[in-house]
């Protein structure tokens, strides 16, 4: 402790924490007045060769200030700027979390509900302009923008996940965001917050579970038998569509092993004709052939209105419909087909030029507490990233009709959980318009 304090003192006197060249020269940018030391990053460049490349799952970094000192510095900073995006329930969740954080810590959390693209572009623009004092301290991201920020030098590349006391409870499982997000390595500079689960959704008043396809690629056969009753959303407009198609890629074009944790290679997509054939066949038997709902919400509305009886959607989106009284809980059946459907864990990072980094760390630690993680399930209808929070939920929340797996501990220990490969998924999304939507 004494040694750590000594280090903090030295930091406060002018040494500090540094990542990459620009941060080393950033003066007071990192941790408010606690900055920067000229230490090289463990991950100075984006490395997507996860199985053979050097990895360093570090414990609490010895060169980093102690948690107590960070908390003191955070109080001194007194504020933190948080940017996130998402559905109305996500907005409610983040608003509430920021208000409670302010009340409990006295550190003002200013929340901006915006869109990830604008926030990402803003930070990348600031990298270009070498603007060392930005105004975002915590930014909520999915895989692709995190990769863009990491590659563009917009992330504060400090393994802060190893610093947050509460983050130790995040599962040590590759697919759940601790090490990679959408197979983009995070180097500890990313704190997963919410674990979305994409599911098969069916009308259980009309069909029994045994009538529904067992496997992720069984949708085509089912749709042939029940024309006009299935749809999925445009993969460019909603995550439930592209996440399901990513899983189809695994199932139809060579298995998860072919893609998992490996660098993107265009040659690996050569046999995707089987995927395009599948999707074009499916198109003929879908609801209003030639049309694709423009988002997760549209899919859930079609389902709740009884227009379709089978689709793919997130647990969180279906929970919104149930909680808003727009969907009869008695019709909602949800399950994860075999072998699985990817369940991404979106979360937060700290931009390279965040002005209140200590407060950001304390805020992210709060986000990972059992209390807030419980709210992830209660307010957003998703899985918490901290499994312990699930245990603390009421039976009503655990057994909600939009939750496909009710024993999360068992599911996370023994279930088949897949991660999306961000780059292959992005490639699929750009190809889908030409290969599927534009095809007559």
């Amino acid at each position, binding site marked *: 402790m004494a040694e750590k304090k000594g280090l903090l003192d030295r930091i406060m006197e002018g040494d500090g924490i540094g990542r990459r060249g620009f941060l080393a020269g950033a003066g007071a940018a990192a941790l408010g007045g606690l900055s920067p030391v000229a230490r090289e990053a463990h991950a100075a460049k984006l490395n997507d060769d996860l199985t053979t490349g050097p990895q360093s799952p570090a414990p609490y970094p010895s060169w980093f200030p102690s948690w107590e000192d960070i908390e003191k510095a955070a109080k001194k900073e007194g504020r933190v700027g948080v940017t996130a995006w998402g559905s109305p329930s996500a907005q409610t969740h983040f608003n509430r979390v920021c208000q409670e954080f302010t009340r409990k810590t006295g550190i003002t959390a200013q929340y901006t509900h915006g869109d990830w693209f604008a926030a990402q572009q803003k930070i990348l623009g600031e990298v270009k302009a070498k603007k060392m004092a930005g105004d975002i301290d915590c930014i909520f991201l999915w895989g692709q923008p995190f990769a863009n920020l990491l590659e563009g030098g917009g992330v504060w590349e400090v393994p802060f996940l190893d610093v947050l006391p509460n983050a130790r409870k995040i599962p040590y499982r590759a697919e759940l965001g601790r090490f990679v997000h959408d197979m983009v390595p995070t180097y500890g500079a990313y704190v997963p917050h919410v674990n979305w689960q994409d599911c098969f959704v069916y009308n259980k008043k009309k069909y029994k579970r045994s009538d529904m396809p067992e496997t992720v690629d069984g949708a085509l056969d089912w749709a042939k038998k029940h024309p006009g009753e299935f749809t999925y959303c445009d993969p460019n407009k909603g995550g439930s569509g592209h996440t399901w198609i990513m899983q189809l890629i695994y199932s139809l074009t060579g298995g998860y092993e072919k893609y998992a944790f490996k660098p993107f290679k265009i040659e690996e997509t050569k046999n995707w004709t089987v995927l395009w054939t599948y999707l074009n066949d499916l198109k003929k038997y879908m609801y*209003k052939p*030639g049309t694709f709902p*423009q988002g997760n919400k549209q899919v859930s509305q079609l389902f709740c*209105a009884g227009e379709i009886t089978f689709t793919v959607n997130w647990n969180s989106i279906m929970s919104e419909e149930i909680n808003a009284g727009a969907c009869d809980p008695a019709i909602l059946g949800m399950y994860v087909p075999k072998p699985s459907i990817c369940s991404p864990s979106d979360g937060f990072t700290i931009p390279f030029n965040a002005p209140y980094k200590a407060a950001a760390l304390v805020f992210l630690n709060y986000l990972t507490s059992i209390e807030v993680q419980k709210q992830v399930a209660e307010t957003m209808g998703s899985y918490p990233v901290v499994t312990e929070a699930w245990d603390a939920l009421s039976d009503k929340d655990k057994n909600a009709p939009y939750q496909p797996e009710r024993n999360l501990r068992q599911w996370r220990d023994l279930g088949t959980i897949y991660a999306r490969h961000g780059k292959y998924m992005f490639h699929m999304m750009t190809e889908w318009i030409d290969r599927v*939507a534009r095809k007559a």
Partner: protein
Amino acid sequence: MSARRERLAFVLLVLPLVVFLLFMVMVPFVIAVLSSVGLTQVAPGLPDGFTLRGYRDFFDPEKPNLQALWFTIKITFLSTVLATVLGYGLVLFVKFRRIGLGQTLSLLVKLPLFTPYLVTAFMWWALLFPRGYIGIFVQKVLIEYFRLAEEAPALISDPYGIGIVACSVWMRFPVVFLIMQSLMEMVNPSYEEAARNLGARTPTIIRRVYFPLTIYGLLSSVTLNFLALFIAFSIPFILGASWPQFLSVFIYVNAKDKGDWLMGYTTSVIYIAISLVISYVYTRSLARRTAHV
């Protein structure tokens, strides 16, 4: 006041306008043009040097760009025609039926003008959704009662742009109505009386009296509506299909989803160029008319 002072006063007077136009109109336009040929680095992923790749790709018939442009022109044209017919028809109806538009009716007609595009798009989405009023009407009346088709067509997210057209027409018909109503009021009623004395019926009066006297107002409203709908984003974004896409949505998808900023900027420049050509043709035709009068 000396001529020099007068000139100085004039310069000072117009300077704010010039500065505004320069920085708010010209600079973004020049940046867009330069970016479309790779001569700026304002966005990530733009090429390092001069290139015409964006334009070559845009006009490549194998690629989807021209299809998006054609779809945009087609839908805009159809919406403009329908908005014009509806607006002009309503003016004629009010005029010849001698209906006095009270405050409430007048406000109702103008309501779309004060409604944001995004709100209107969502409103129409709710109406055209299979369980919305129009969706139910189409299903119950047109399909089940009159049996006009085996299945109700998709009214939203549809490849024919039905939703876009319906919403656009609702948004823009008041422009035609307001312009044409004020012009009609300005036509000397003695022309109509004279025509009636000579035995002309209403259709003839419309064709031979009102139409020629209001044609330039009609052209103005058509141009205004065409340009406004041509560059619309919210309506096609909310109500449009995965494909074909409106050009504005296409730019968004290229830039945001695909990160292809070169194509985004190229499409924007072509978009602006087409709008400018339409505006120029319209202005020229008006100028010629003024010269003849």
